[in-house]
């Protein structure tokens, strides 16, 4: 099956076959990551720029590790030293990067739509590593990978996404990706943390009653309360939020025995998850998600830069 994409920007551009190929390719990269020498020369000579215009530790680390294990040459560009801070325009920054003769830009930005603009301006492959409140497609892919790994499928699963949907770029990609793969998605949040038209994301249902939906779910996906992004105090206190929407030992009893708990990290312990749930030996798959992040990013880099499915 041919992989025809140049960019990974909008997960809605990807068919179920495209996503399956990415997940299968990620699975093939697992072996490399289990070796003592965790590096293959498949992208040797390719230059990838990690353009992170917004602070990021986890996503950037994960991309860097993925790039290094594929032998890319990488340039980390951004953070507090970005030219944007010096008043350079996005277009000028991108043109400058392109003058280095690069092959791909991995873009993180606090403004929605920037990866598309970078792609249009640069002409090179672009991966969206999170743009504003819009999308975060590699996060969605690593979530799908982890869910499939633990439950053997995605099709037909019932997934509840709980928490700050309104500020979540994870939801912008995860909801459509889950729908593409045949899952049933329920958004669970207080109305003040829902976007204006939550169903426009593609979800099947929306509710503010967590206890009511928990017994049906195969996957409970807990979103992080992004305290840095909250505007206008959307709930009265973390205490009340945790009471209504936190996953804890009491709510564990409402879950089906095989249900798993995901979280994109970093966790606010005691807010969306208590220690019992965060460290739960069978339910919590949070560290598997982190590992899956390296695998799916390797797969995305590899396929977008022209690799085929013959990697072994």
């Amino acid at each position, binding site marked *: 099956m041919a992989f025809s994409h140049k960019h990974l920007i*909008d997960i809605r551009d990807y068919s179920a076959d495209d996503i399956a190929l990415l997940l299968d390719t990620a699975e093939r990269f697992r072996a490399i990551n289990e070796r003592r020498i965790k590096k293959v020369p498949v992208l040797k000579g390719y230059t990838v720029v990690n353009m992170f215009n917004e602070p990021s530790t986890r996503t950037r680390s994960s991309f860097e590790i993925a790039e290094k294990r594929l032998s890319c040459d990488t340039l980390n560009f951004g953070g507090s030293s970005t030219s944007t801070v010096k008043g350079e*325009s*996005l*277009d000028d920054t991108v043109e400058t990067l392109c003058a280095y003769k690069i092959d791909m830009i991995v873009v993180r*930005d606090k*403004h*929605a*739509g*920037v990866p*598309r*603009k970078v792609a*249009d301006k640069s002409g090179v492959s672009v991966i969206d590593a999170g*743009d*504003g*409140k*819009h*999308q975060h497609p590699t996060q969605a892919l690593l979530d799908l990978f982890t869910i499939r790994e633990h439950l053997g499928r995605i099709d037909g699963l019932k997934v509840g996404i709980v928490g700050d949907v309104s500020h979540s*770029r994870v939801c*912008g990609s995860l909801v459509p990706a889950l729908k593409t793969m045949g899952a049933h998605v329920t958004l669970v949040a207080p109305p003040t943390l829902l*976007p*204006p*038209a*939550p169903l*426009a*994301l593609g979800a099947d249902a929306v509710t503010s009653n967590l206890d009511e939906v928990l017994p049906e779910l195969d996957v409970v996906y807990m979103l992080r309360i992004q305290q840095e992004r909250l*505007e*206008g105090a959307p709930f009265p206190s973390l205490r009340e939020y945790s009471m209504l929407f936190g996953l804890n030992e009491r709510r564990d009893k409402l879950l089906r025995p095989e249900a798993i708990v995901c979280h994109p990290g970093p966790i606010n312990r005691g807010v969306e998850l208590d220690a019992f749930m965060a460290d739960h030996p069978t339910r919590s798959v949070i560290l598997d998600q982190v590992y899956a992040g390296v695998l799916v990013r390797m797969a995305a880099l590899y396929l977008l830069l022209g690799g085929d499915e013959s990697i072994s």
Partner: protein
Amino acid sequence: MALLLKNAHVIDPQVGLNEEGCEILIRDGVIVEVGHGLSMAKGVERDLGGKVVVPGLVDIHVHLRDPGQEYKEDIESGTRAAAHGGFTDICCMPNTNPIIDTGSVVEYVASKAAKVGKCRVHVSGACTKGEKGEALSEMGDMVAHGAVMFTDDGRGVQDAGMMRRVMDYAAQFGKAVSSHCQDESLVGKGQINEGAVSTRLGLLGWPAAGEEIQIARDIEISKLTGCPIHVQHLSSAHGLDLVRRGKEDGAKVTCEVTPHHMFLTEESIGDDYNTYFKVNPPLRTAEDAEAVVAGVIDGTVDCIVTDHAPHADHEKACEFELAPFGMTGIETSVGLVVDKLVRTGKITWERMIELMSVNPRRVIGIERVAIEPGSRADLTVIDPDLEWTVTPDCFESKSKNCGFTGWTITGRATDVYVGGYATMQDGAITSEPIHL
């Protein structure tokens, strides 16, 4: 000097005129005779076969950006653009730098526009000092220098008590207050219409209620104070209903709409986050756009304006959330209205003239212009069949941020006469400044 416009289709609902093959004789800037088989001893003749001649068109919502942001537009480029778009008169907005909130800034704009001599420019003054919404501006001084209307355009007056004071005070000058309706506590940093598209694109929503709440408020304050209220760039179906109801109640309320709120919707904003479509108030739903057009047809809407808002390329070529609000429109408005409303039969030429000539003059309280003997010869000539494509190089404006770029439009103004002299002839701006 005498000028004879021949063989034109002359339309003016004010005098019940709609005749083809008609002639207009103009002497010393004034219409002398309208009829058939006119002649003159000496003068200039223009054959306007196939063209429509209407009373000079007026756009009462224009940003000239001068003083202060001349890199976007200045009085010369802005008035050339107005003439190129088919307008004899415009009314410019006060959110310049400095803000037009004193008589001296009104004077600066008016005198510079007169020197350029391309278009009659009427000035809206700010209704509060610095458009801060805190203290009354010197409206009396501005009226003494020719200001025609008061508004804090670009911002809504946030405090209802302040708006009441503004309207109480403005009433003594017989001027309307025009209102940019935007409740900042509801709108916040909203980027585009709140709804499915804002959700999908991950952009903060700008809910229609943030506009409607101030429309409702200002109509009530108008009733309280007796001061006429003109609702600017109305964008939502419900907002239009509020105006409709206000009119039924006998309130002194008028309103205006723009071509972009009629012919574009939030769906125009695609995954490429084209900042040309970032306007304030935002493009709304298809239902809203339909309702706005319905208001244009049924008479609820008084004026079509452009809210011509020039911005430099470097300001629009950036992250959507960082781009300024606004699109240009003064050079595409007439063509779009002819193409989408008149040629489709949704409105008559007569209705278009009411919306773009008669009512705008009435709202800002300037001299009536009609196609009859004795009237000032301010005329717009339109070729209703001319097909053209909107391209970045077709503008007189310094800025290119037009959301209709790439559209092919049938109909445009070809000639404009101001006081009997051409500011545009056969689509080209004339070189000599005319005496205003």
